[in-house]
């Protein structure tokens, strides 16, 4: 008995809990920590846009058309005299809300479908996964364009399109985890104890597949930002006069020789969250899957 108590105290000292372990492993990855810092910075300036932005996003000033970066306009102005810095800040607000909304929708639908497909197997699995294959056989941008053509461009329309276009990715990740998990004895023991299927899926399987899914969420957020910006660039995304990073890039491309700031700053603004999400995603993947070789 006394030996048992001894080992338990040892355990408490050596293993301060799974979260601490995770934190240790993640914080070892310098690039991922940098990405997390960058993301935190971007989120803060987005939330505080009302206080930080010197001008309104749509205020036009014909006395200051196409001015280069200056103290008054840190990122210059566009052809309507709008402050690009302010437009970038408010543009973040729109692009983040669209991307996060879309990815969360895909995460919810995809995870549910994938878990059910992997758990039930059989014809349901075949049916859902062949559907996923069909969706995945279209490049996601083409799929998004087609869907937008059908439902018309709007902010929440784009979010919905992202949600549909990314559902298959989450469904696949969730299904592969679900298949291996369904064979574990603890899932079978839950069935034997009469735990209902929805409860098994949501209360037991979901928390156990969350790790790999969070990695996918982070990486898909990066893709989502790019896709949203691309749709805007092509003119089917956020409609003017709402500030949209992609559209600003498109407006600037024709006069890049005269007003480089009109393209550069929105371009960098798109790049930063993509870098942040990608580095965080890579870091999380390394942390959740320590079997992968770390270079």
């Amino acid at each position, binding site marked *: 008995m006394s030996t048992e108590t001894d080992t338990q105290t040892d355990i408490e000292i050596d293993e301060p809990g*799974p979260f601490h372990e995770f934190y240790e492993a993640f914080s070892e990855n310098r690039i991922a920590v940098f990405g997390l810092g960058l993301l935190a910075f971007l989120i803060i300036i987005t939330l505080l846009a009302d206080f930080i932005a010197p001008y309104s996003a749509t205020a036009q000033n014909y006395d200051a058309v196409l001015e280069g970066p200056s103290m008054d306009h840190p990122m210059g102005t566009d052809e309507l005299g709008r402050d690009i810095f302010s437009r970038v800040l408010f543009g973040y607000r729109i692009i983040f809300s669209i991307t996060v909304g879309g990815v969360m929708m895909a995460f919810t639908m995809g995870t549910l479908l994938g878990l059910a497909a992997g758990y039930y197997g059989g014809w349901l699995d075949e049916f859902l996964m062949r559907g996923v294959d069909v969706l995945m056989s279209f490049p996601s941008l083409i799929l998004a364009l087609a869907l937008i053509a059908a439902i018309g461009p709007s902010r929440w329309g784009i979010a919905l399109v992202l949600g549909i276009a990314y559902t298959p990715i989450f469904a696949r990740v969730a299904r592969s985890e679900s298949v291996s998990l369904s064979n574990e004895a603890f899932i079978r*023991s839950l*069935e*034997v*104890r*009469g735990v*209902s299927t929805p409860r098994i899926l949501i209360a037991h399987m979901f*928390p156990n597949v969350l790790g790999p899914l969070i990695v996918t969420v982070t990486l898909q957020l990066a893709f989502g930002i790019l896709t949203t910006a691309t749709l805007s660039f092509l003119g089917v995304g956020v409609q003017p006069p709402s500030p949209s990073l992609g559209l600003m890039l498109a407006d600037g491309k024709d006069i890049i020789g005269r007003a480089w700031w009109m393209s550069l700053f929105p371009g960098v603004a798109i790049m930063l969250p993509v870098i942040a999400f990608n580095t965080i995603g890579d870091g999380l993947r390394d942390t959740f899957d320590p079997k992968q070789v770390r270079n």
Partner: protein
Amino acid sequence: MALLEVDGLSKHFVVNGGVVPRLLGTRKELQAIRNVSFEIEAGQTLGLVGESGAGKSTVGNVITRIYEPTNGTVRYNGANVHELSGSDLQAYRQSVQMVFQDPYTSLDPRYKIGRTIAEPLKIHTDLSKAERKERVSELLETVNLEPEHRDRYPHELSGGQLQRVSIATALALDPEFIILDEPVSALDVSVQARILNLLMELQEEYELSYLFISHNLGVIKHLCDHVAVMYLGEIVEQAPTGELFENPHHPYTEGLLNSVPQPQPGGSKSTDGLTGEIPSALNPPAGCSFHPRCSYATDQCSVDAPPLETLDSERKVACHHWDAVVADQADERSELTHSSVQNDGTK
């Protein structure tokens, strides 16, 4: 009426399923269990023994409705288990529990021990949160763990402790019948004995019936009232434990018993243990499925499958030549006594 009656149970799995193999006709059936029948009386323990791949675990999984049977019935208190629904099914879920082989994977890794044990209580009873907590402490005590283990995660406990937790979870709803699927095979030998003793104590205290699935004859001998020996999905011999161990009637049982290492100093090392491998259940041999490995086999064995014959009320055997097996053992025994007498004489 017996508590559990398994009658003519078969379970076939389709290997290589799916649309394409179906069209090509390359689908195969794996006969995991074939025409298995046995009964378990209240308060008794039936041991199910056999090599890996004999279908032992499948029997357990069909009884607990993880699998639907291809043929045959499982009756519990007279009711067909696979036709239960609604509140009858919930009642069945409460009174029949299962403990799995690998304690490391049979608990949800993200649930604290207390939450795992309390879950069946939450589903099947209307105990309040405080009452559940109290019951969990009680159960932990029953399986000789501390109430403090409630707040630990499975990865913080040892294999033996985890198996105790599994047993506590199984006991949570006052079951009548527990299927023990190799409950100690993954544990250290010293821990095995303690878990087995715990199981025997619990059986006495709560009047439990067990179906004890194992490949370990020593463990079976220790715990079971009756033993059924399985080979390639079929029961080949069934008898009260003592009789089976003293006087096996089936050549396979004999082989299994001879394969057990005898730790007696100077004990004769048996040479007639089992040879060869268990054949694939995808392609079982014709006739008696044991005949390719059997030293008693004759031409008849490769053609006719022997039925499970009832010799007396408690003993069943499926072999054309069981009398030869019995006679052979009688010879061996007399030889043994003879040689030991001689040994005594020379000393």
